[in-house]
């Protein structure tokens, strides 16, 4: 029997054809990780939009999982283990694998035809080109088919169980208890006993193959993580976003309304909320993004928490209506799940290049709060915060997520909703002006105007996109009034209380500060940790609020000799910080549709720090 080696973290990637069930396999392995108390982060990778022909590189689907004993911040960049169900999967993913990493490949699929499809001149499983790796070339398909023979499935269905065989093998390899998955399969296929039993058989066969074969010299064990005490679940960013919005509506005691038009990678926010009708959520799949935000604004006007969710192209279309929301000063949450652009771009890939659009992309002076989510589970908090600000300040708020947050998953300590702050929407119920009149633009101490809902007697009023007179809200063409209103709208946003920027500078004397926003949080944190492990000093700070910026931001920036701003764009936050604080921050940009590589960032940080010290 193989030895058991203890690892404190491991990155595993399952890769195969779109039809090979890699997402389910990954998901199940993640769940197993939960039961041993590991911390983790996952990242699914879907082929681009169209289903490509079977066996081609374009058709490869994969699922990456990073499990560990402590504080996992990202799904990792270099897998340690690659499960490749066919030559295309190997071809597409080998480049990422850590040198020396472990490969499990299904020999059954490495046919001359399949090899040719992806341009392999010879079979890499046999031509020694993988000598630098720990290769396990196994007939997963054949073994699966044999394992399920007794159930008399068609050849195709029988072969389809190979993902469970692979999962069983990995269960064994990582010293996990197969019981959980067997239970899961029982439940999942309860209605189809034949399929259930075949899958269970293949899974067990995989597990036993590990136990009996001598292929593997070592088994692994990743001890449980020391997560903060609490009850956890796994959550993706889009789901957390939807839950955060629901939580805010519940804490404000308002109904939630989502107007949306499907678009990758934001669609699942709509899907999750559409499934929450029993939570009082009304979703409207509109004819386009303009109608979606228009209806959400209408719903807000009528007293709901109006929300719209989309991605770049949809944001572009919503531009004009966001401007109207600024003028109407009504609550509205706009979720932008960023994807790689410009134009249609790379719809399934991640990027952070909508920041300046969110901040400045409207005609006229139309400031609004911008908030960024930094990880899948953090989408919950970002959404809650955005909704709170929208309701308390009567303003549209943009929440920036991205494809990486949206589709990635991680353990989430389930919040106790009753401990979340209550939100008081302060709905107007009585006249506020002279002679029992209602003045829709008389502001409160936060500079927010009253929110009077149709149906309330005595508060009848008209609002619209033309400039309005201060206090009364009547149409006004007066030049000085316009200036007053432009400044008031800006002052309201600038006055939103946001927490100070926290700096993580363990030694207290770092000279380099790394400032990030959004989903670079994971890679920056992980890279900084590695840099520190190497004995170097580095400080980090992460911006949740991009508008208004925390009051201490300038001070923080000026405290460090070098400020590095890693972004998945061409330097948008850097531009903002330079303009606001006149600090010569250095931009570190990667525009590849991928999360910033921890390894690369680590290396670059080390170079930077060492040059710095040498100066």
């Amino acid at each position, binding site marked *: 029997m193989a030895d058991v080696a203890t690892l404190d973290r491991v990155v595993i990637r399952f890769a195969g054809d779109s039809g090979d069930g890699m997402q389910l396999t990954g998901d199940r392995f993640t769940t197993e990780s939960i039961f041993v108390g590991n911390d983790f982060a996952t990242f699914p990778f879907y082929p681009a939009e169209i289903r490509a022909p079977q066996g081609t590189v374009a058709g490869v689907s994969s699922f990456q999982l990073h499990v560990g004993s402590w504080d996992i911040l990202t799904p990792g960049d270099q897998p340690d283990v690659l499960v490749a169900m066919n030559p295309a999967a190997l071809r597409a993913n080998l480049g990422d694998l850590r040198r020396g990493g472990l490969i499990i490949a299904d020999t059954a699929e490495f046919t001359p035809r399949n090899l040719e499809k992806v341009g392999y001149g010879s079979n890499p499983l046999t031509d020694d080109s993988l000598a630098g790796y720990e290769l396990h070339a196994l007939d997963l398909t054949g073994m699966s088919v044999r394992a399920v023979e007794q159930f008399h499935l068609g050849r195709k269905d029988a072969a389809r169980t190979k993902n469970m065989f692979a999962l069983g093998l990995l269960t064994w390899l990582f010293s996990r208890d197969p019981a959980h998955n067997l239970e899961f399969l029982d439940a999942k296929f309860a209605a189809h006993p034949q399929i259930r039993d075949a899958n269970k058989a293949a899974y067990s066969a995989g597990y036993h193959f590990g136990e009996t074969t001598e292929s593997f010299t070592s088994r692994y064990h990743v001890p449980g993580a020391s997560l903060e005490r609490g009850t956890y*679940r796994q959550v993706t960013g889009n789901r957390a976003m939807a839950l955060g919005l629901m939580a805010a509506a*519940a804490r404000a005691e308002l109904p939630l309304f989502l107007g949306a038009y499907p678009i990758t990678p934001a669609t699942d926010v709509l899907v999750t909320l559409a499934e929450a009708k029993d939570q009082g959520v009304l979703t409207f799949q509109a004819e386009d993004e303009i109608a979606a935000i228009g209806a959400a604004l209408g719903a807000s006007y009528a007293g709901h928490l109006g929300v719209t969710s989309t991605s770049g192209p949809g944001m572009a279309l919503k531009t004009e209506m966001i401007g109207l929301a600024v003028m109407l000063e009504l609550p509205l949450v706009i979720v932008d799940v960023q994807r790689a652009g410009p134009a249609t771009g790379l719809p399934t890939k991640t990027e952070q290049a909508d920041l300046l659009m969110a901040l400045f992309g409207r005609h006229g002076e139309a400031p609004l709060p911008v908030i960024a989510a930094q990880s899948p589970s953090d989408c919950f908090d970002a959404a809650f915060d955005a909704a709170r600000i929208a309701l308390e300040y009567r303003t549209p708020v943009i929440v920036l997520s991205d494809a990486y947050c949206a589709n990635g998953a991680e353990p989430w300590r389930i919040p106790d909703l009753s401990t979340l702050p209550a939100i008081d929407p302060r709905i107007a119920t009585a006249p506020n002006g002279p002679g029992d009149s209602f003045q829709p633009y008389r502001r409160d101490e936060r500079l927010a105007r009253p929110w009077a809902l149709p149906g309330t007697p005595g508060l009848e009023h008209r609002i619209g*996109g033309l400039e309005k007179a201060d206090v009364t809200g009547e149409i006004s063409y007066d030049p000085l009034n316009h200036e007053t209103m432009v400044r008031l709208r800006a002052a309201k946003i600038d006055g939103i209380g946001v927490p100070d920027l926290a700096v993580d500078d363990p030694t207290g004397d770092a000279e380099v500060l790394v400032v990030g926003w959004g989903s670079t949080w994971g890679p920056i944190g992980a890279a900084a940790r590695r840099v520190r492990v190497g004995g170097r000093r580095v400080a980090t700070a992460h911006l949740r609020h991009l508008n208004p910026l925390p009051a201490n931001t300038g001070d923080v920036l000026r405290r460090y000799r070098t400020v590095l701003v890693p972004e998945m764009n061409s330097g948008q936050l850097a531009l903002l910080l330079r303009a606001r604080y006149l600090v010569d921050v250095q931009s570190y940009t990667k525009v590849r549709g991928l999360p910033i590589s921890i390894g690369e960032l680590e290396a670059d940080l080390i170079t930077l720090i060492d040059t710095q010290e040498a100066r």
Partner: protein
Amino acid sequence: MTATSGLAGVPLAVTPLTRKDLASDQEVRWCPGCGDYAILAAVQGALADLGVRRENLVIVSGIGCSSRFPYYMNTYGVHSLHGRAPALATGIALARPDLSVWVVTGDGDALSIGGNHLVHALRRNVNLTILLFNNRIYSLTKGQFSPTSERGTVTKTSPEGSVDAPLDPITLALGAGATFVARAIDSDRELLADVLGAAAGHRGAALVEIYQNCPIFNDGAFDALRRKDAPALIRLRHGEPITFGDGLGVVRDPGTGRLAVARVAEVGTDRVLVHDAHDPDPTTAFALARLTDAPLTRAPVGVFRAVTAPVFDDDARAQVRMPAASDRLAALQRLVTGPDTWTV
């Protein structure tokens, strides 16, 4: 849901409203002689007659001369963006069954930039009353041809005559599956009142096209219809034979199914088409709409179609189950927690 009146669910006023109660304190700023004045008066009258509470009326408009409408109504109102009123109104209607939601729009607003929202509001059958002021011109921007301008219209942007074929809002609406379609004209107060009342009573999307004269940029566009000597308005009344003017009537060719105008005396009263606004098949309504000619010399007015069909906002709300206030947080907590948890 089984509500059948457009106003079911909207609370009634304790003391009936008068026209004046519905006028806001804002000075009305259309040009002298603008058809919008007459429509405003008629709408105020019609809304007062509905008997619902003022505060439960919401008027949403887009951008255009006509879209200034909400400012003149002492109700709730939103002057939104060019073409987008149906979108906002859909959100309002979905959110609140206790509101009577009206859309006021123009031919440019509704049929040019906003054409798609109109089509979708109609096909979904959202409980809205949509008043489309058709002056066949973009007035607010000072007179360019609109999607309803006749071919050959000379304007600043079509100095040699427009080459666009116009849209007919009535056939477009019928093609989109609209459940209530009507037409009126600014100068016929009684007709307007009738049609507005019927539209408000309809549960679902009601489209009312209102021919409106713009004396500044398209004066006289509907003059042919106003002539006392040769009446050209073909008044549609459900259940009544379609006759108009001096002994004219609408008849159907039994072979081709086509509708035509004939002298009743010549063809006999029996052959005159009896108007059936409730016909589930919109084909005859479509054929009637086609009696509108260009250059305009005659046009059917009144309710072309009024049929009962599932109502989008009612059905959407019917699927939503809001937990009791006392259980809301707990219910959500269950969802947030989900089925697969582990404890550290």
